[in-house]
């Protein structure tokens, strides 16, 4: 015997003997499970003879097994199709009551697709001021001259001030990485004005536009509407600054800007906390599966302004679809997709979960839905503590635009109770 074999044998026996000889727990068998009906039928052949003439348990099994298998396959097929149907149509109808739960803001600005586009692959959009409860479209705002579409919208806490990001048309180029210039516009709404034209006022913000080939990632308007935080990645200078993310905070009163550069990061989401000073950034590090929540105090000088609140290691098979930091800065709401590439027609599931930003602990799972790949719950609004959410969930009934085969439905999510709100089939995103 080789030395290694002897060593292994000794080690295994020593570890095995950690279980004391007298420690075996008594075996608890449930009575009557061993042979079930077959024993009854063997004891009482007259019972077996009633089923298709089979006289013994063995004969019975020969008939029953294929029949049970066929029934099981049928049940699974019916179940899968039912679940696939129910999952996307189980949402209740619009509420009959005049009040919506959760004290959500009464108006929102949604970005709607405009059917028909002169440029293949590029969708024209417009902004629509909408009443949350009734879905009435109070005003429609077209993209300013020189720009092609609104791509994102953010809101202050006063429910009157919004900022829209507009982009120009992408022109064909030899460079495969093309991003259009992005400019920011302030939208002030006056819902009680008599004429639709007076209900919305769009003005260009006194902040520089993002240049061509600067990849605009996300932006957020501070709750008091005085500052705008913009996250972007500079692709134009990629050979020199690969993977450099830039976060800019603009003071909309003075026009002053402050920049933060992050090497090897990509801040995909930006949020303001209620103090109007702290910006929470959510993103990945070094393009792997480590995610961070970084708090930046925009009033503090120098490097003391940054503070990593949370580090999360994810897994390559999980796709982070949406991340939201609640206004109180304490909760990360995360929509993660768990793909199942072979699981047609249901190809994955979305888990909407809440994590404590300070400890990283899971606070609760809000929703689990089976989806096709790429369909996801999005959180559009959260109350300060994250208890009341406005989310969009995918429906697959209509093709909304070229290449867009998902209609969204929006609703208020409190706990696991979903109350739908009126939502246009052309609306893709919105801000409250």
């Amino acid at each position, binding site marked *: 015997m080789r030395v290694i074999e002897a060593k292994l044998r000794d080690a*295994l026996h020593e*570890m*095995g003997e*950690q279980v004391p000889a007298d420690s075996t727990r008594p075996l608890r068998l449930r009575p009557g499970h*061993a042979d079930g009906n077959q024993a009854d039928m063997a004891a009482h052949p007259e019972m077996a003879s009633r089923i298709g003439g089979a006289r013994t348990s063995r004969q019975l099994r020969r008939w029953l097994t294929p029949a049970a298998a066929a029934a099981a396959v049928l049940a699974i097929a019916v179940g899968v199709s039912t679940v696939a149907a129910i999952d996307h149509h189980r949402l209740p109808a619009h509420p009959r009551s005049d009040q919506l739960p959760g004290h959500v803001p009464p108006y929102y600005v949604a970005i709607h697709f405009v059917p028909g586009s002169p440029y293949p692959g590029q969708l024209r959009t417009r902004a629509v001021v909408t009443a949350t409860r009734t879905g009435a479209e109070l005003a429609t705002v077209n993209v300013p001259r020189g720009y092609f579409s609104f791509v994102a919208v953010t809101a202050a806490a006063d429910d009157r001030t919004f900022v829209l990001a507009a982009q120009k048309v992408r022109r064909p180029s030899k460079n495969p990485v093309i991003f259009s210039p992005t400019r920011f516009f302030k939208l002030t709404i006056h819902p009680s004005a008599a004429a639709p034209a007076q209900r919305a006022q769009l003005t260009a913000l006194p902040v520089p536009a993002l240049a061509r080939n600067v990849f605009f990632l996300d932006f957020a308007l501070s709750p008091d509407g005085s500052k705008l935080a913009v996250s972007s990645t500079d692709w134009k200078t990629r050979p020199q600054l690969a993977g450099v993310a830039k976060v800019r905070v603009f003071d909309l009163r003075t026009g002053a800007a402050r920049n933060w550069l992050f090497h090897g990061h990509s801040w995909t989401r930006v949020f303001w906390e209620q103090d109007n000073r702290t910006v929470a950034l959510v993103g990945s590090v070094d393009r792997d599966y480590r995610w961070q929540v970084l708090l930046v105090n925009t009033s503090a000088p120098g490097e003391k302004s940054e503070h990593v609140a949370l580090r999360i290691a994810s897994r390559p098979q999980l796709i982070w679809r949406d991340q939201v930091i609640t206004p109180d800065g304490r909760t990360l709401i995360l929509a993660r997709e768990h793909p199942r590439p072979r699981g047609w027609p249901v190809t994955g599931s979305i888990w909407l979960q809440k994590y404590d930003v300070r400890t990283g602990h899971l606070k609760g799972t809000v929703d689990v839905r089976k989806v096709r790949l790429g369909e996801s719950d999005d959180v559009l609004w959260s109350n300060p503590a994250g208890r009341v959410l406005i989310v969009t969930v995918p429906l697959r009934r209509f093709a909304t635009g070229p290449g867009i085969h998902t209609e969204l439905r929006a609703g208020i999510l409190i706990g696991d109770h979903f109350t739908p709100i009126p939502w246009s089939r052309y609306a893709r995103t919105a801000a409250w």
Partner: protein
Amino acid sequence: MHLDFRAGGSRGSTVVPAQVRPMPPDPAVVVTALYRDNALKLTRMAHIMLGSRATAEDVVHDAFCGLYRRWEQLESKDKALAYVRSSVLNGCRTALRGSAARVSWPAEAHAANVPSAEAMALMSEERRDVIRALWQLPERQREVLVLRYYLDLPDYQIARDLGLAMSSVRSARRRALAALERLLRGTA
């Protein structure tokens, strides 16, 4: 333990009159006897595989309950012990994968697939290294080594328990021992 339920029963073509035909043994009695004789050894094996005594006891208990439930479907009753052994190995795999799947946060990630600190603290330094190295081996190789060097099973029985060819068992054992030596040299 050798189980021969034909003792006293009908053998060959001998016809035994119905009134003296012996009753088939009660499965509960047989499974309980089998458990009494083999539970300790199997629990210790599961403890080696899992590093957790409580989980090992659960796995073995569940394996015997499963044997009892499927007693009538067992083709050959004298293979009951092999059936239980396979069940225990399957249960260990399920437990390990379950513990790995439950872990999503980095702090717990290292605790998923290693023996408990308590289990390791009770062992001598050299043997602790051996167990640590064993745990770094692939699942299949680990199972082959435990069945061979803890339960002292011959290769053909290991092959039957794991559903492998004999040659696969031999090569897995050879590779596992080589890897173990390599790992231990690295530790030293």
